[in-house]
């Protein structure tokens, strides 16, 4: 097999480096990546279309299941869209509880990411330790909302469950424990030589390129771009909560590690402020079932970046059109740019560096023939016939 020619390797749908299936076909020259071709569409579930067939209350639970790790931000966006069209103002206690859940979700998502990044570079001990600490957060979430993932806490007009005083005490104890652990991870991440050699100088994304390709979230903040929706366009109760936005300017994977680990401290600060200043009152107000005609846009800062939802309603109790643009979709062109010129051994850590959540991002991909730009879209019946014909041609029954 000739070595000096370029080789195409599929970091394919099934690969231990990817937690969710997408196809990155990389062209290699020795050990350096020269070109990359991204193909998506392996986990498309058609949620946007499904939402048009269910009423607004049923859609609350469908929107949650767009993603497993950032599920609460999708619910908050949806509910904020509907409340904007209905012109509802939710009580302040509900806002604070929503913010509490948003921050708890960001906490467990960042701990998960540190573990997954450790696993990609072969550091399984860090993976096990961070996921063990993540269990503390999951226990808190289960205690308040009744479920570890897909909490179903939001409803149109507020939240569904309340936080009692005993639960508040448990949250504060957990925050003390997690702050100590975050301190330990900060020391390990910044001072461990093998992590440094694997992540410094890897996956460079210069600030002008990041702005041109519309990178969001910690990926952009590691390149020095100071953008955070929580501070720029406050929602829930972020306007009343003081916190800092963390940026570094190293532009590489190490910067992303540092941004996420330092954000852990900010989260602890925010949650302590929320729990100390929780206002009393109702947790929800009654909302009508039919939504008048109108449209609304809402965006929030998911753990991965900016998450944008658009709703168009038409006066009935089912939405007319709902569109979701998730942060991983915005970061994909940056991945294609970062992979060029990298080593093969760095491909998993670069892809994992943007914290990919392919389930959120997926779309339908139409492959066209190169020569005559024609394509074919098969529905279920034609797909069955095509499959049977293919097997018969091969001689199998």
């Amino acid at each position, binding site marked *: 097999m000739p070595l000096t020619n370029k080789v195409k390797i599929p970091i394919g749908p099934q690969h231990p480096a990817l937690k969710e299936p997408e196809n990155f076909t990389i062209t290699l020259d020795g050990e350096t990546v020269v070109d990359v071709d991204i193909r998506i569409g392996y986990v498309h579930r058609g949620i946007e279309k499904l939402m048009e067939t*269910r*009423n607004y209350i049923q859609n*609350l*639970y469908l929107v949650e299941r767009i993603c497993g790790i950032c599920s609460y931000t999708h619910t908050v966006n949806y509910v904020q869209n509907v409340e904007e069209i209905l012109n509802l103002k939710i009580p302040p206690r509900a806002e604070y509880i929503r913010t509490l859940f948003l921050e708890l979700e960001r906490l467990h998502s960042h701990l998960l990411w540190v573990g997954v990044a450790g696993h990609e570079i072969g550091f399984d001990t860090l993976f096990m330790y961070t996921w063990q600490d993540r269990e503390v957060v999951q226990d808190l979430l289960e205690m308040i909302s*009744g479920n570890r993932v*897909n909490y179903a806490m939001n409803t149109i007009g507020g939240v569904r469950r309340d936080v009692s005083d005993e639960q508040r005490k448990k949250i504060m104890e957990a925050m003390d424990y997690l702050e100590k652990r975050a301190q*330990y991870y900060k020391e*390990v991440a910044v*001072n*461990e030589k093998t992590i440094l050699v694997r992540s410094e100088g890897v996956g460079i994304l210069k600030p002008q390129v990041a702005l041109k390709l519309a990178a969001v979230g910690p990926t952009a903040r590691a390149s020095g771009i100071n953008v955070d929706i929580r501070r720029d366009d406050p929602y829930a109760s972020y306007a009343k909560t003081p916190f800092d936005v963390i940026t570094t300017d190293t532009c590489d994977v190490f910067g992303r590690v540092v941004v996420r680990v330092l954000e852990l401290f900010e989260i602890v600060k925010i949650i302590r402020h929320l729990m100390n200043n929780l206002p009393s009152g109702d947790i929800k107000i009654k909302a009508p079932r039919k939504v008048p005609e109108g449209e609304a846009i809402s965006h929030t800062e998911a753990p991965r970046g900016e998450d944008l939802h658009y709703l168009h309603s038409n006066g009935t109790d089912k939405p007319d059109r709902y569109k979701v643009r998730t942060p991983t979709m915005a970061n994909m062109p940056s991945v294609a740019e970062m992979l060029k010129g990298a080593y093969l051994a760095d491909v998993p850590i670069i892809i994992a560096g943007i914290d990919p959540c392919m389930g959120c991002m997926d779309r339908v991909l139409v492959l066209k023939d190169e020569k005559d730009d024609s394509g074919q879209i098969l529905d279920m019946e034609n797909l069955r016939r095509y499959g049977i014909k293919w097997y018969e041609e091969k001689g199998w029954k």
Partner: protein
Amino acid sequence: MKTPGKMLPKIFGFIFRKPVTVLYPKERLSPPPGLRGKMKFHLDRCISCSLCAHDCPSGACTMHTIDGKLRPVFDLDFCTFCEQCAETCPKDAIEMTTEYELAHYKRGEAIVK
């Protein structure tokens, strides 16, 4: 110069300690009181308004006429345990318990009437 192996001191302490794995089913963690498990249906409070079936996101709650009365039947194969039926019911005829060990062998085996 930084040498690798920063985690070594902490690692030593863990070698002889008990692991954190919970050996299910010999040991079980106790579920918190708010856990959304299987639902319990009080037939005497139901007024057959069908709002629960209208609001169920997955179609687990369907209305059937049994013994002359229109009442909901819950199929646990479809249920997402979201508690919306309990919230929508105007007469509090549905409540969620904390029973979570609901595995069964065939479709259609787990029905709550």
